[in-house]
């Protein structure tokens, strides 16, 4: 292109501000989404990079993504299920545990990786302008892939064991995944930017994620929780609070769609409504997280 042609083209384009808290496209959520969409290629490459690099140089490579959940499955199945007796009263316990672990892994992998994403990409954040949401998003993308592999194993296990789910609940599958993604993204955005200011966030996140697994009916059943509450004469609102946890809702939805062993007593009666409300609250939370992220990200480059 000649200088003349360039000047003419430039004259025709308006000046744009790079001031808006460091965000090129402006602060409006729609503008943010548009800018991220413009960078989808980069998002894809960064996600792929994280995955490519993850097991490079190891002999088993991506098999490791399956070994970890399989070991967890074996541990929970044997120790918790058979030795401690959690399997009593839960049909097809292996499928039950593995499906719960899979959906929870989507949350924990996403949030865990996203929390450190900006700090780990400090070299890029400090030297090149890209919308910074890309980094936690790429972490969630990577987690989706890894958990996707696990999901395939889960489907394989269902086929092999013959423990077919009752297909009436299949409609819960996608909403459960979406629900987890909304919250994972919200927490991922929040924690990634907080971690820049306080590096402890990354480590606290790891611990909380380990604990959080026990807050959802993954290795025990929701029915058991409701029974315990009756046994100990606890007020019923405790069950309501317990069931309001979006992770619990997503795990229940996942069970409903993939685990063949349950009966009506294994699920709260209003799972759909709860899922919808949790989803709406999740979207508000995600918007809030994005707002905090935007406010804070302008100073990220100098804090790193």
């Amino acid at each position, binding site marked *: 292109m000649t200088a003349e042609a360039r000047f003419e*083209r*430039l004259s025709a384009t308006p000046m744009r501000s790079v001031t808006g808290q460091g965000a090129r496209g402006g602060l409006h959520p729609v503008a943010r989404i548009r800018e991220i969409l413009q960078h989808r290629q980069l998002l894809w490459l960064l996600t792929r990079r994280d995955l490519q690099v993850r097991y490079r140089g190891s002999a088993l490579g991506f098999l490791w993504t399956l070994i970890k959940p399989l070991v967890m499955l074996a541990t929970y199945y044997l120790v918790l299920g058979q030795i401690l007796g959690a399997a009593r009263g839960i049909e097809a316990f292996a499928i039950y545990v593995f499906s719960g672990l899979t959906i929870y892994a989507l949350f924990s992998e996403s949030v865990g990786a996203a929390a450190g994403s900006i700090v780990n990409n400090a070299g890029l954040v400090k030297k090149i302008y890209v919308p910074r949401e890309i980094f936690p998003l790429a972490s969630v993308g990577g987690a989706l892939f890894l958990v996707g592999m696990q999901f395939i194993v889960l489907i394989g296990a269902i086929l092999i064991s013959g423990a077919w789910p009752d297909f009436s609940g299949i409609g819960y599958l996608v909403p459960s995944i979406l629900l987890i993604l909304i919250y994972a993204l919200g927490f991922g955005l929040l924690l990634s930017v907080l971690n820049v200011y306080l590096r402890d966030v990354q480590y606290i996140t790891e611990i909380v994620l380990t604990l959080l697994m026990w807050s959802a009916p993954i290795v025990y059943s929701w029915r058991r929780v409701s029974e315990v509450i009756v046994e100990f004469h606890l007020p019923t609102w405790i069950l309501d609070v317990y069931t309001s946890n979006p992770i619990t809702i997503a795990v229940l939805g996942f069970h409903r769609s993939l685990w063949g062993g349950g009966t009506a007593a294994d699920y709260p009666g209003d799972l759909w409504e709860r899922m919808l409300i949790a989803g709406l609250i999740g979207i508000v939370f995600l918007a809030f997280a994005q707002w905090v992220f935007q406010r804070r990200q302008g100073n990220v480059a100098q804090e790193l």
Partner: protein
Amino acid sequence: MTVTAAPEVVRLDDVRKAFVVRKDNTLKDRVLTFARARRHRTSYTAADGISLSIHAGTTVGLLGANGSGKSTLLKLIGGILSPDSGSVQIRGRIAALLELGAGFHPDLSGRENVYLNATLLGLSRSEIDERFDDIVEFSGIREFIDNEVKFYSSGMFMRLAFAVAVHTDPDILLVDEVLAVGDEAFQRKCMDKIRSFQREGRTIILVSHAAAQIQELCDTTFVLDSGAVAFAGDTLEGLGVLRDLLERDRRADAAAAAAAAGTPIEDEDDDEAESRVQVVKATVFDAEGNETTKVRQGSSVTLRLHLTANGDVDDWMTGFGIDTPNGQMVLGTSTDRLKAPATSHRAGDTWDVDFDIEELNFGVGDYFINARAEDFAEGTSSILWQAALLHVSGSESSVGTVAARVTTRETATS
């Protein structure tokens, strides 16, 4: 064809940016220092109300001492940092080249890194496909392109990174100290590419400490001092302003060191005292008597120093030093050395002193001329740094800072 005036591509309006530097970054540190939190913060201003405007097609040098806010300014323009107040506006596609190979991952192959890095710099997949061969060709490491980058030598790494950077298609290119890398041949390639960027009307904003590079490339300069624009305009003048600033900082440091050591502060005023004889300007004339900055190797030139007196002077001298861009003196002399008699001048007089240099046998390249005048009676002097630039052209039959006629022949072993 209509001639379009170069549009404004970068506009900063009263931009301020202060950094708060915390010395504690973990929870433990925060808790331990909670009560004294304020003391663990120091703030410094990296941009203090900067307003400037840059037009398309210009190459702009940002000059300043370390910590004067040059890199911050680049990052503000690039959107990497956002200002505390004021506005930064740009036009067109921008690429920030603040560090070569930022975003290169050691575990990925050269090919994968090219795609990743080019995407980071804003190219689309199809654009990269189109340019991939050019990039690899330019880098000259085709045979290693599928090896992991961690096995590259640092030179190969830089070449690939530079190749990617110059094959993006920016309207504005921000460069921080990374204009030419690799061996001499590759450096020439880099500079050629930069020149073609200039011809294509791209805007280059450049931070460099290499005065010669700035002098060679930039149309205009901004000199920054403690986050403010101290000078805007002509490159040679800008370099002069920078020299003065560096000199001022050096004096301040020396004074501070002297104060710290408890020694009485030397009367720096002696040095600072205006010399009664001053060099105002230096001009170079070729053998035909035309003013010039470009001379042929081996030709004769006349260097004229323009002097002025602001007091009566009888015993004075003037001289010059010609330096390479690295600051090494190639030639220097003075009226004192040449045993030229000094004439008396009264306050307000202006006069010229000519030095005729026969056969300027310098190597091809750029040289800076520094001029100096000294009043022996009071022991004061005035120095004009980089008073003039000399660009020597000539035969490429030899390299180095001096030139000589060299011939070769084969002789029988004795």
